[in-house]
């Protein structure tokens, strides 16, 4: 426990982590600020609830009327939409979007009836379990989920790289490694203390940006709509998972955290091998960013691309695990990608701890 306290003390003494965090958070705002108004929320509230046939008809009518009005107005004075009309148009489009989700799912189900792949039954079961009909204003949750997918990668990635890359290298550069390696608890116990401190640090980082994420986006876009289904957010339009926004956000955070934990352990391992903090930083940075560069810059076949997607940066992004129905064929048994990712991260983390433990046990002073 004492060792853990000291490791945390050493970690949180680094002023650069506070500076970097503030800077990254500032940039993540894009320096823009929009606030949803009460009248906009009220407009959405009129349509809130399960989408019935009656609502569909009304939305259809409303859309036609508005389009007609616009056409006339364009001819008269060139003016197109008022703010209220824009919001209404958005509502009609969203309703149409939601109807299409179910339509797509039903079409997919009929198609699946004719297929007999190793994962067909699982996909059918998931699509049957599907209900996306509840409509509500949900821009806040959408923004929160998006932030946790996109900006979180930079925040967690950079903060881990900066905060943890020196976790062992600083011992070597300060010459304290001599005391450490010749002391009773300087090898395995210290490793556990460093790993635990790294995991606590990671947890704090994720919680810190999540608090900002919630505060910033809920303040701007409201807290309503957590119970709408994730398919309402266009990135998950084809997702077969029956989660509402709140459930998905928790899962998203959980998987992000797990991958971040694993990455933190990798950084500890690299730091234990390297003598130089900068080299450790760049190696860790390369491990983190290279899969992204490969996937985005090269046209890889799907199977190969998915291998790169099971890297830290993509698992921390979480999105690709849930945006479509994707399974891994485990001897004819379909395993959903999120499950594969979780198992993969746990196995990798355990392996990393074992390797690091072996390294610190055998570590010798060289200079």
């Amino acid at each position: 426990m004492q060792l853990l306290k000291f490791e945390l003390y050493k970690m949180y003494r680094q002023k650069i982590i506070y500076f970097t965090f503030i800077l990254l958070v500032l940039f993540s705002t894009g320096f823009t600020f929009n606030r949803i108004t009460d009248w906009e929320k009220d407009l959405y509230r009129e349509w809130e609830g399960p989408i019935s046939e009656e609502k569909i008809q009304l939305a259809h009518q409303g859309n036609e009327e508005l389009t007609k009005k616009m056409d006339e107005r364009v001819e008269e004075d060139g003016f197109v939409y008022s703010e209220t009309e824009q919001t209404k148009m958005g509502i009609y489009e969203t309703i149409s979007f939601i109807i299409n989700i179910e339509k797509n799912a039903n079409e997919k189900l009929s198609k699946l009836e004719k297929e007999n792949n190793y994962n067909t039954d699982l996909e059918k079961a998931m699509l049957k379990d599907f209900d996306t009909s509840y409509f509500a204003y949900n821009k806040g949750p959408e923004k929160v989920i998006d932030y946790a997918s996109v900006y979180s990668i930079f925040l967690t990635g950079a903060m881990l790289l900066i905060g943890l890359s020196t976790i062992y290298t600083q011992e070597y550069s300060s010459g304290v490694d001599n005391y450490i390696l010749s002391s009773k608890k300087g090898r395995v116990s210290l490793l556990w203390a460093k790993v635990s401190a790294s995991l606590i640090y990671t947890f704090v980082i994720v919680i810190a940006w999540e608090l900002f994420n919630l505060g910033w986006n809920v303040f701007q876009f409201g807290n309503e709509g957590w119970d709408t289904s994730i398919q309402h957010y266009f990135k998950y339009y084809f997702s077969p998972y029956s989660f509402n926004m709140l459930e998905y956000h928790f899962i998203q955070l959980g998987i992000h955290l797990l991958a971040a934990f694993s990455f933190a352990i990798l950084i500890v391992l690299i730091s234990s091998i390297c003598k130089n903090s900068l080299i450790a930083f760049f190696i860790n940075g390369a491990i983190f960013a290279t899969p992204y560069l490969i996937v985005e810059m090269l046209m890889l076949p799907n199977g190969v691309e998915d291998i790169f997607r099971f890297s830290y940066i993509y698992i921390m992004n979480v999105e690709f695990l849930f945006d479509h129905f994707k399974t891994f064929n485990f001897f004819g048994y379909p395993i959903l990608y999120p499950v594969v990712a979780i198992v993969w991260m746990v196995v990798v983390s355990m392996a990393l701890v074992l390797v690091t433990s072996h390294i610190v046990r055998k570590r010798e002073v060289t200079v």
Partner: protein
Amino acid sequence: MNLTIENVTKSFGDKKVLNEINLEFTTGVYGILGANGSGKTTLMRILASVMKPSSGKVFFNTQDIEVLDQKYRDVIGYLPQHVGVYKSFSTEKFLMYIASLKGLKKEEAKEKVTEVLELVGLSEHRKGKVGKFSGGMKQRVGIAQALLNDPMVLIVDEPTAGLDPKERIRFRNLLSKISTNRIVLLSTHIVSDIEFIAREVLILKEGKLVQKETPKELLRSIKDKVWTVFVDESEIQYFQSKYKVSNIGRDQEKFQLRIISDSKPHQNAQNEIPNLEDLYLYYFDEEVA
């Protein structure tokens, strides 16, 4: 209590830094004397378990230290040649950290830190940042950390290198105070560090153990090899090129040379009582520190 080194060899690539070293230590201070590159630090590191021998074993109370692992590290204190510190830590915090590495409980550690700070004369600087300390003070922090676990085996590597004479004397006194009931291994190339406190002196040369004797015995071995001769200034160069000259002093019109030589260097040369500096020069063909 004994510490035994059996056939220890350490190589870096093709270079043998230690070659088939066999030694046994019991309670007392042992001075390990050697020139730079003689293998002292490597031997110290192996004994401190921060380096592994290429071959051979080290036993503590007949048990292999590699097998004993942390049980062995629990009984040693190690002061490396270069004292590492966290510059922004206070002395107290730094020592508390090392105490936790040594497995001391918080309360016990607090007491021990106070005790060792008192011992090394740094009580008044317990809140001072270690990074701002002088070389001598850092060295004292180094010895303080090594003593935190009350070690049975204390390994100090070149502890006085870079210290001024006053700090060196202070360090020697400190070492002599704490050496009771322990095995103290002190490596140095400064003869005066060990002259009066070492129970035995080991001489390492190019990775090989050349001598291991009490200072008295070692000095006896060169008893007929130290000479004094009075010469004119013009003759000094001749003697310096032909013999190992350990000291040159002026005596009125003449110069007094202290010469190490197996044979009498001059018909008027007088035999002298050797000291450890003479011994060092006898074995190592370099200037005495």
